[in-house]
């Protein structure tokens, strides 16, 4: 089985491009299934089920969906194997631009949205920088100039990676994505594999439910802002 991790901020078009590419892969005789990770709720499972793709859903609730992903990805693999999938695609939202589920040796895709503006590639962290393939959506609604500049910025943000435009609505470009997925390495076991970088720290009282505001509650891993009207903070 091939595992593909697809990550991108909310509503960039992950489900749309996964659906377009999966339909092509299915026509080629491959069995594709999707594991969708989100925080509070999702209706993506209905979209996948509507097109008769097997789908598993994980809602992280109070946890970061990417942390939740790592603790559940092996179970997802087992599910995929029980479903006899050829390709298992995980979809997860990079909510904080910092986390991302990319794993060494597993094909990593980051979806970015051209509508978000030409400076976006610079702002997205490891999710984009360490992906193997970058998919740019919504190129249809921005100018040709912005498409070219966005592509350039993407190349600078992740030099050497493959990147392509894919229209999530018409499917234009999805064939290239499908071909890249086809060439992805096989993943049989994940045990022992490593994330491409550590996920953000979560060790302050707010991580475990503190709601009160005030200095006395700021313990553990606390970092303070610096303001330019104050010389070095005390």
């Amino acid at each position: 089985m091939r595992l593909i991790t697809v990550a991108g901020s909310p509503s960039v078009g992950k489900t749309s491009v996964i659906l377009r590419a999966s339909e092509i892969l299915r026509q080629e005789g491959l069995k594709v299934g999707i594991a969708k990770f989100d925080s509070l709720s999702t209706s993506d499972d209905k979209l996948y089920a509507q097109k008769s793709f097997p789908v598993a859903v994980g809602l992280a609730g109070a946890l970061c969906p990417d942390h939740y992903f790592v603790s559940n990805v092996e179970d997802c693999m087992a599910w995929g194997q029980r479903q006899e999938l050829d390709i298992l695609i995980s979809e997860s939202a990079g909510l904080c631009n910092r986390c991302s589920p990319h794993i060494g040796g597993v094909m990593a895709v980051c979806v970015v949205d051209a509508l978000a503006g030409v400076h976006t590639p610079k702002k997205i962290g490891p999710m984009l920088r360490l992906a193997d393939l970058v998919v740019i959506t919504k190129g249809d609604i921005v100018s040709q100039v912005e498409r070219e500049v966005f592509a350039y910025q993407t190349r600078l943000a992740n030099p050497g990676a493959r990147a392509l435009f894919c229209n999530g609505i018409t499917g234009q470009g999805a064939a290239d994505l499908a071909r890249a997925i086809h060439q992805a390495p096989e993943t049989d076991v994940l045990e022992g594999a490593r994330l491409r970088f550590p996920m953000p720290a979560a060790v302050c009282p707010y991580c475990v439910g503190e709601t009160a505001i005030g200095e006395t509650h700021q313990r553990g891993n606390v970092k303070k802002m610096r303001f330019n009207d104050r010389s070095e903070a005390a």
Partner: protein
Amino acid sequence: MNNLAEMPLDSLLTTHPCVADFFGSLGLATANVPHPLATWLEQLPDEAFFDAGMEREQILTHIKRLIDEIQAMGEADNGQVGSLILIGGRDKSGVAENIQLNLRAGEIVCIVGPTGSGKSRLLGDIECLAQGDTPSGRRVLIDGRPPDDERRYTLDRKLVAQLSQNMNFVVDLSVREFIDMHARCRMVADPEAMTGQVIACANDLTGEKFTAEVSVTQLSGGQTRALMIADAALLSASPIVLIDEIENAGVDRKRALELLVTGEKIVLISTHDPLLALRGDRRIVIRNGGIAEIIVTSDLERRNLERIERLDATIMDIRDRLRRGLRIEEDILWTA
């Protein structure tokens, strides 16, 4: 560049501004560091890497790749394309098109057909340089050969630029800043001069002049179209340009075509406009998702084109007088 790690950081940053940008985006302060890159990375606290979301080796590899990438972008030839061959596939009912269309640089071909007949599908096939892997089964050859994967995937030097009708500007920049941004990422030698030239050409194409200082989001439909055409002709990396209708009022279509042709581009325009459709040497007729016919413009049609141009000039003149607040009361002579 194998001793990248030994380079003093400050000189590295002066020779490679992209590296400075990269550290900026990681939130790492790099001012006045005379030590070699590797030493500096050693000295940074682990926390800095954690915040940046990258490990030391990853940063080092990233910088190597970044410098290589910028160099590759600077060296890449602009991919002049001499010819494009479109090999027919099938229409929506699966009937074979049995057609091969050869286009040369500097040639303009129009695509005609009812709305929904499949003109966009044809533009889409060319845009993705289809290799029998789209629903139409069409194939595109560049200079007589299927484009290699590299060509299909090089994102910012795509072979095909597409100017579509329903585009928006997302950035809020002045026309000058906007074109300048494009010129810089195209790494042209003199971005300021190029920007001036694109804006002058665009103004040449539109009746409603605009300044370089106006915001792109305030341009009218015609001005936007003119700017995008001038940019595609002069600045776009792509040797093939696909245009989805230019009949939008306010663009001098004849001049626009001349401009695109002088850029030695291969231009395909999907259009219902007689002034455009009859000006090309040939036009592709689309029916039921397939290429039904390729019509060579006849002498009779060329003569009619001249008449239509005179009619069009009459209407343009009326429009212009209306704009200036004049009355249109004379007997209009339509005999062309």
